[in-house]
């Protein structure tokens, strides 16, 4: 049995959950402590955090440390989200806090954060799987932005970040100085541009039946109020309209009273509700589920996965790959060729484990790189490497951190372009030496795979790779003529040789 503390240093709240893991798949929340602290307003405006806020943050983190000690927690993980991310001197402040409290805060990129939110929903297990059987949209409403992820038959087809967070919208509304009665209308005008694009590109023609809501205001009410009748956390589209009617016809005070929240939060709840209502209208969803999870649940779930304590039925790597496939599709990448490359790279990767010493996560990078190897083609056939790199760097891939995305982008780039060595590369990139080596190794593999499929005719469907002494023997079972591949292979293989000191060799085995 293990006890774990998950800390979320959010934009307006510092939260900690204590979890207990027992048995193979039991994850139980035993405490949830929240402290309101507005870090967002300052860092969004000035990029820095005032002395007072650092003080307060340190004081509460120290208390949290005591609390986790009182539960005899085995481990903890603290993540900072946008407020910490957007701090110019985040490194200094985080170090200061660590020195004072002993708590190290890691920074999450948006895509990592959303992935954790997503994992937090997945931590609900069966309920999650069941809802995903039908077309589902996850609406994750944060302070600064909202994330909309679309699932089709259990497959993640896209995820988009829109700068329509509740705090951001409230700030805009306040600037316009809108009357309460106008709020809904104005909100619709503000969000329309972004939402209609979303609708046009992704939602149209998809049958969406369920919406999963992650937010801090409405979910709480849905979790609570529904306890009187029905299942807590669930509300039908129809019931939701009744709720909207109530919200429209009540002032902030009544809402606050009825829902047991502060008046300030009543406004945020209303914004949240309007956003959700827009999406319900767009999709025609019939069921809304608010699992009432927070980032902390995702942090704990991730920890449990790392500790191999939770065997999830859900394949998160597949979500990431699905996402990459959707991106490739969007830039008209060749699915067939990507499949060949995927299979080739995986074969080579798996048979050269002793050489590269890389793990499961790096295997995933390589696979994504194979899928996205030609996305830049969409823009320019000549500048394929650079364009691919730019596209990948500009596209969110859920579940990948910024650094991981950069690794993938570099592998794709150097597949086409001359490899830049660390000394040159580090001048324009933040990659550390370790990541650089990963890039080099994965590039070497992708390059020979690419070489094997030179003609793009998928002659090398069935390749066996065998490491023998200082040679990597690639046995191809094909009756086709592979003169072209053989001829140009030496060139491709050179880099591999440089990286691994092993020479790849092609052997053709003519089947009967």
């Amino acid at each position, binding site marked *: *049995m293990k*006890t774990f503390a998950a800390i979320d240093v959010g934009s307006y*709240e510092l939260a900690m959950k204590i979890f*207990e893991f*027992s048995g193979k798949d039991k994850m*139980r929340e*035993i*405490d*949830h*402590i*929240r*402290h*309101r602290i507005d870090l967002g307003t300052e860092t969004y405006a000035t990029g820095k955090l005032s002395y007072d806020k650092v003080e307060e943050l340190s004081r509460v983190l120290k*208390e949290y440390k*005591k609390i986790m*000690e*009182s*539960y*005899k927690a085995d481990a903890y993980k603290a993540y900072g989200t946008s407020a910490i991310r957007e701090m110019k001197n985040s490194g200094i402040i985080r170090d200061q806090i660590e020195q004072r409290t002993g708590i190290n805060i890691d920074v999450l990129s948006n895509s990592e954060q959303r992935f954790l939110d997503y994992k937090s929903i997945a931590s609900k297990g069966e309920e999650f799987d069941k809802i995903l059987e039908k077309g589902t949209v996850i609406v994750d409403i944060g302070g600064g932005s909202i994330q909309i992820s679309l699932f089709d038959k259990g497959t993640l087809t896209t995820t988009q970040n829109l700068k329509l967070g509740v705090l951001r919208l409230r700030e805009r509304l306040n600037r316009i100085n809108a009357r309460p009665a106008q709020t809904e209308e104005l909100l619709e005008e503000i969000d329309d541009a972004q939402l209609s694009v979303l609708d046009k590109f992704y939602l149209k023609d998809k049958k969406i039946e369920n919406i999963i809501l992650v937010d801090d205001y409405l*979910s*709480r009410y849905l*979790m*609570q109020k529904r*306890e009187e009748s029905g299942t*807590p956390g669930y509300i039908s589209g129809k019931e939701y309209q009744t709720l909207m009617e109530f919200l429209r016809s009540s002032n902030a005070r009544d809402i606050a009273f009825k829902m*047991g929240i502060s008046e300030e939060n009543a406004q945020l709840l209303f914004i949240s509700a309007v956003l959700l209502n827009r999406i319900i209208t767009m999709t025609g969803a019939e069921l809304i589920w608010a699992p*009432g999870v927070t980032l902390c649940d995702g942090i704990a779930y991730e920890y449990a996965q790392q500790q191999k304590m939770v065997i999830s039925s859900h394949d998160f790597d597949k979500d990431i790959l699905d996402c990459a496939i959707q991106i490739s599709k969007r830039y008209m990448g060749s699915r067939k060729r990507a499949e060949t490359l995927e299979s080739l790279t995986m074969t080579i990767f798996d048979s050269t484990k002793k050489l590269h010493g890389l793990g499961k996560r790096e295997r995933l990078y390589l696979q994504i790189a194979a899928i996205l190897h030609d996305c830049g083609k969409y823009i320019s056939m000549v500048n394929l490497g650079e364009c691919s790199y730019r596209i990948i760097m500009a596209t969110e891939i859920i579940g990948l951190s910024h650094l991981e995305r950069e690794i993938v982008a570099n592998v794709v780039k150097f597949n086409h372009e001359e490899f830049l060595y660390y000394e040159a590369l580090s001048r324009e990139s933040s990659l550390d030496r370790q990541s650089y080596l990963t890039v080099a190794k994965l590039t070497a593999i992708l390059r020979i795979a690419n070489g094997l499929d030179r003609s793009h005719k998928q002659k090398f469907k069935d390749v066996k790779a065998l490491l023998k002494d200082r040679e990597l023997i690639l046995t191809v079972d094909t009756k086709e003529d592979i003169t072209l591949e053989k001829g140009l292979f030496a060139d491709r293989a050179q880099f591999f040789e440089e990286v691994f000191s092993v020479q790849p060799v092609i052997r053709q085995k003519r089947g009967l």
Partner: protein
Amino acid sequence: MGEKKNLYKNPEYYTNREMSWVLFNHRVLSEARDKNIPLFERLKFLSITASNLDEFFMIRVASLKDMVNAGYTKKDIAGMTAKEQLEKLGEQIHGLVDLQYSTYNRSLLPLLEQNGLHVVKKHEQLSKEDAAYLDKYFESNVYPVLTPMAVDSSRPFPLIRNKSLNLGALVTKKEGKGELEFATVQVPSVLPRIVEIPGENRKVILLEEIIERNIHKLFLNYDIVCVHPFRIMRNADLTIEEDEAADLLKEIEKQLKKRQWGEAIRLEVEEGIDKRLLKMLKKELAIGSEAVYAIDGPLDLTFLMKMYGLEGFDKLKAKKYTPQPVPKLPAGEDIFAAIREGDILLHHPYQTFTPVVDFIRQAAKDPDVLAIKQTLYRVSGNSPIIAALAQAAENGKQVSVLVELKARFDEENNIVWARMLEKAGCHVIYGLVGLKTHSKITLVVRREEDGIRRYVHLGTGNYNDATAKLYTDVGLLTCSEAIGEDATAVFNMLSGYSEPLHWNKLSLAPLWLKDKFLYLIGRERDAALAGKPARIIAKMNSLCDADVIAALYEAAAAGVKIDLIVRGICCLKVGIPGISENISVRSIVGNFLEHSRIFYFENDGNDEIYCASADWMPRNLERRVEILFPVEKEELKAELLHILQNQLKDTVKAHLLTPEGTYEKVDRRGKETFNSQDAFCKEATAMAAESKETENNRVFIPETHHE
């Protein structure tokens, strides 16, 4: 709907809370006047009426004076301004005091005499030997601690301490021109008020009489013209009373600086006091005639509690009841194992409070316990709970204690042991800004084989092992996951963290509790309107929240049958045609102080029953941290319902509120005589005996041969 609500809030439908309080003290006084009660118990009740009245003056009358001084004209729920209330109260309290002393003089004193205890009323009545004995007693014991003070042009009028008993005298200088001067001496509170005079028959005299007899020894250069005892009550409480509305509090706060500190609000003097002396006192204390109480007898009757303690009169006292062991928790039992078997209900003082103390004691020593968290409101002087908490902290447990410093009159006491806990390593929270923490909850977090398990005690009474022998309260010991989660959330909130995302079982004041009660009452109303049976039984100490009362009226008008058991103040009126004909109110004043709060709702056959730390008073629902908890195990629900039903059956100690607004003893004709408190004592004793018997029977019985 709005209009209808106003209908139920018509001031005519409400009794002023102060007047209702006077009625309550009359009920206590009626116990002192009840011939069926042992004589010394009656002394005790009379003493209680006196200390009640003192507290009432210091808190309520003082508060009303504040309102008048602040020019606050808002009316109370019964439509009375503060000034009107004070005027009316004046009359009522004078009547109450008259009755107190006629009870003392006409009933109790003669009975004491008959039963062999002579109270010497005046020192002039002493025999020579007795007088000599007392003079000697005065010189060796009393004289050394007295501080006589005389007033003249060079010495200002001395500060007369709040609630102290004093002797005031008019004196003239022996070599002077016969000018009257004022002199005073405090009757020392460190000495016993009652002094027993040795001899064949038992005789007692009050300390002030001894001093009065010897007063010339204190003012040697003066001639004594007259000597009379007097006593004052001051508005010395600088904290603002939480009972009042928020706007009033603001108003008074503004006025606070203007308020004359320690303004005298009551002056008690001996009847027949020298007019010149009285005039002088009134002038110096700046007090009007309406606040002067001329007393026919000894001032400050609380000495009767000491008289109760005199040895040798056991036959004139009620038989002492020993709280019984709880069958599910025999002594030495692993309390956590017992709770895991199922929730346990405790009914004090019929059942002993020891399990609650043991709960914390065992937790302090248990190596698996990680943390203990508790709220403390009023604890006893030498509290075993405090000792156990300190021990736990020393054993390395995380101990968090919320100590309510704002608990009336207990402040100094609280600070001392709070510091002690801090020294032992406990995390002590000194209350919350603007709120009194009145909830009674203890959480023990234990790490067990299959994970964290939380054990919770929730109660209606304070964690005070002394009062738990006198107050009737209920408590619940549980390790229910849902309540455990809520308890953790409660302590997170009390530590200053945000409220939880949702509550499982508990309802907290000041944020949610009132709504919950209104919801529960409203649900019965709806049931009644739908033609279903609907019923509410609620037991509490006081009922004066206008919103709750209006909801009760509305429910009763819809046909809900409502039985209320309200010990003290009740602002609700019964028998208002079309409004409260379905409501009955009874008050039980007995040997034990009724203190538990139990709420029963029929809920269309799925009855729900709750216990709480809160009364239906605005201060409980709006300005305190209080907890309402459901009791859900069927057999425990039955026990609670049984408590309520027994109290509804009571024909001995129950007074029924009449439509005229008076309280009358239950008409016993055709009913069996039933004293609910006695019945609970008997039941608890029987239950304990029965479980002991089964314990003794723990012999294995071998199976006999089968055919």
